């Protein structure tokens, strides 16, 4: 069979059907010229991803991150205004741990919370969310949102979550998701742009105390999920 440029490229990208892939692999193995092309494509891919990787590692410029932080709300109630001010003042206390998880803040800023959580160990419903839900892929209607994930001092994976009826931190041990901290549920967002309310601030501050390093980024979260959070 003839092997086209498209075949070679798709082969390198892992885009061929398994049947076709086997054929191309055989052809490549038998033909040094094809092998050379495959190597050139691989080298190019490695060079490109190597070149652009550092950009994703850089801290996100403040101007961008600021777009996702709470905006001063138009308030009618002075008590609410004071609470909001205080809520904002809590931000710097946990901001360092959220930095690498800035991916999370985009999802948080776009969508509003709902849902509930129990005591002791997480119930099956919450455990399901903790097992499967990645910060980067959260659905807007999700009952419970994951705020961020981190490892505690024992090396266990922990996840801070928030819902309308409860929020907290759960860490995965041999038994299941142990609830380490529980806070009040969020009372619905006061502004659509809000990143985190006061109760979430408390949870995040607690997470920061428990964490042994910064929060997991999207890739690390995905890997942790793949290994069952153990």
């Amino acid at each position: 069979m003839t092997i086209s440029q498209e075949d070679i490229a798709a082969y390198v990208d892992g885009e061929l059907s398994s049947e076709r892939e086997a054929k191309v692999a055989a052809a490549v193995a038998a033909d040094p010229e094809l092998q050379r092309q495959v190597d050139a494509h691989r080298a190019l891919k490695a060079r490109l991803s190597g070149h652009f990787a550092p950009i994703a590692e850089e801290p996100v410029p403040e101007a961008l991150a600021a777009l996702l932080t709470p905006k001063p709300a138009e308030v009618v109630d002075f008590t609410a205004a004071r609470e909001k001010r205080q809520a904002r003042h809590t931000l710097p206390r946990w901001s360092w741990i959220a930095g690498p998880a800035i991916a999370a803040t985009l999802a948080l800023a776009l969508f509003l919370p709902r849902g509930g959580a129990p005591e002791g160990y997480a119930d099956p419903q919450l455990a399901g969310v903790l097992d499967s839900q990645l910060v980067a892929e959260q659905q807007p209607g999700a009952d419970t949102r994951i705020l961020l994930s981190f490892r505690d001092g024992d090396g266990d994976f922990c996840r801070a979550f928030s819902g309308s009826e409860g929020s907290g931190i759960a860490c995965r041990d041999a038994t299941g998701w142990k609830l380490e901290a529980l806070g009040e549920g969020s009372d619905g967002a006061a502004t659509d742009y809000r990143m985190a309310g006061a109760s979430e601030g408390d949870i995040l501050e607690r997470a920061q105390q428990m964490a042994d390093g910064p929060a997991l980024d999207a890739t690390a979260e995905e890997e942790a999920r793949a290994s069952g959070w153990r």
Partner: protein
Amino acid sequence: MLPRLRRFAVGLCGNPTDGDDLCQMSIERALANRDKWQDGTRLDSWMYRIMRNLWIDEGRATTRRRETFVAEEAGLSVGSEGAQESAVELSMVDRAMQELPPDQREAVLLVMVEGYAYKEAAEIVGCPVGTLNSRLVRGRDALLELLGEKA
């Protein structure tokens, strides 16, 4: 997601300054349109689509601006070649990427840097998979040529 989006923006624009501007516009547009995001679809793909659409729209305007601007700058820097060179000091990869037509550049970035499958990349761009595939092949060949990976 934000660091990845920013990487895509910088890759499209060819420099961090324009990339951050693009990123900012994309987030603002996403926030303004967040009710249009459909449940069950991937948030990151949606964001990438917003970004590339903005970039395409902006590109038409910027190209015109830049043509005027560059002509002016070239006129000012006559006789100071050294300074001019350092101003346009870009890495080989950056320069090669900027040589690519926009449709090839975005295809290369989405698949080879961001790691999207052809089908996902085609959905973001809004073209058939076959079209994306051929842009990718052309873009890749041009890069191999420009970066001297082709023996």
